[in-house]
């Protein structure tokens, strides 16, 4: 139901602004007018509700307990990460992800302890948007989703149409329990981002553009597992005096 509502909101918002011309001029962000409005909306919700809850959670819960909660959800996530690694042809990484799940679910007491990392099985970061990227699908326009935040057409559709179903929580039969788990996970995620979001607030001249650039760079890096090919641009040329080439 929540998903349906979010989908409707997104469609409505996209439809509402499709006709407006925007002035930002970033080729990755033709929807900048809508996106900035949604960014402000999300920021308002965050400041009013989500961030205070996350701060309270961080203040009340001892660190080892928070780590346990993070580990619990991270462990469930490893299954879908493994599936995506295999879809991308990275069989070794996929096997490692399933190995992590097996080890952490048993020795790590239902995932509360990340013993697999200590055993040398590193945690990966994969989702279906990255799988599509690996298969050569471009990211499409930058889109700020309601509540969920920065995304792209490719990553947003992947999230709603595919990742959501690959998420073990989605398959929890008891709906109130499932929603509680979603809630705790959301608070846990936000609490882990408190330092990063404070940094972004301090570092940015224009928070919207800063977050957009960081998101697009990070996704690109994730698609290539941390080794993206260098982008053509001034980064490659000598220090100065070289005009920027337009990205394709």
């Amino acid at each position, binding site marked *: 139901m929540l998903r349906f509502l979010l989908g409707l909101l997104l469609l409505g918002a996209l439809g509402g602004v499709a006709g407006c011309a925007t002035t930002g001029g970033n080729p990755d962000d033709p929807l900048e007018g809508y996106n900035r409005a949604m960014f402000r909306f999300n920021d308002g919700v965050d400041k009013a509700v989500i961030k205070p809850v996350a701060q309270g959670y961080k203040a009340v819960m001892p660190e080892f307990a928070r780590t346990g909660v*993070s580990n619990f959800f991270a462990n469930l996530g490893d299954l879908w990460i493994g599936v995506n690694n295999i879809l991308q042809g990275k069989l070794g990484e996929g096997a490692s992800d399933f190995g992590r799940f097996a080890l952490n679910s048993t020795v790590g007491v239902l995932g509360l302890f990340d013993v697999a990392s200590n055993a040398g099985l590193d*945690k990966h970061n994969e989702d279906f948007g990255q799988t599509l990227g690996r298969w050569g699908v471009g990211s499409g326009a930058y889109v700020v989703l309601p509540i969920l935040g920065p995304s792209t057409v490719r990553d947003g559709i992947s999230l709603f149409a595919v990742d959501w179903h690959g998420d073990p929580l989605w398959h929890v039969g008891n709906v109130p329990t499932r929603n509680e788990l979603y809630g705790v996970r959301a608070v846990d995620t936000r609490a882990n981002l408190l330092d990063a979001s404070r940094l972004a607030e*301090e570092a940015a001249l224009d928070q919207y553009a*800063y977050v957009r650039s960081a998101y697009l760079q990070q996704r690109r890096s994730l698609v290539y597992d941390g080794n993206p090919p260098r982008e053509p641009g001034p*980064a490659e040329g000598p220090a100065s005096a070289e005009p920027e080439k337009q990205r394709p």
Partner: protein
Amino acid sequence: MKRLLAALSLALFAAAAAAQDIAPDALIKRISDEVIDIIKSDKDIKAGNQEKINALVEAKVLPHFNFNRMTALAVGRGWPKANAAQKKALEDEFRTLLVHTYSGALSTYKNEVIEFKPLRMATGDTDVTVRTQVKRPGNQPVSIDYSMEKTPSGWKVYDVVVAGVSLVTNYRDTFNAEIRDGGVDGLIKALASKNRSLEPQAGAKPK
């Protein structure tokens, strides 16, 4: 105070001299080890004493950065439009912003371990990327890559890429927009007012 400054500049000079013929990954390792040792043994820094953190960063870290190149990269296509005085002002303001924003993170250090990936470098290379992974028990490792170039005074860092995000080029969109709207001077002004807003207030801000 004067003696402290003299000692600092001497240390700086010594660091610069020693840095001349050291390999880029060895240099990053040496700097990180030194800084981590100091953080570990200094309670004031752990408690977030900004003055002491700044002194540490000025002495140990900044000599190994090329802020001129960093600023040129961040400004991108607007850089050639700036005159010498504007370039200097941009560099100073950008340096202040980066140092202020990121040096505070040092006080959050908690037993992270830095692992170095093998350096891919051919003889004669003057531009390399030093790849590291920062691991904290119970957390996903975070990659931090340093883009470095060889200069007559040793290897210098000109970009830091954290989890795929370049701290330098991340500013390019904003800087371009500021220059488009208000020219190079508009960007200098925006940076200066941002820096003023970050200056410590009477009451320390909550962590």
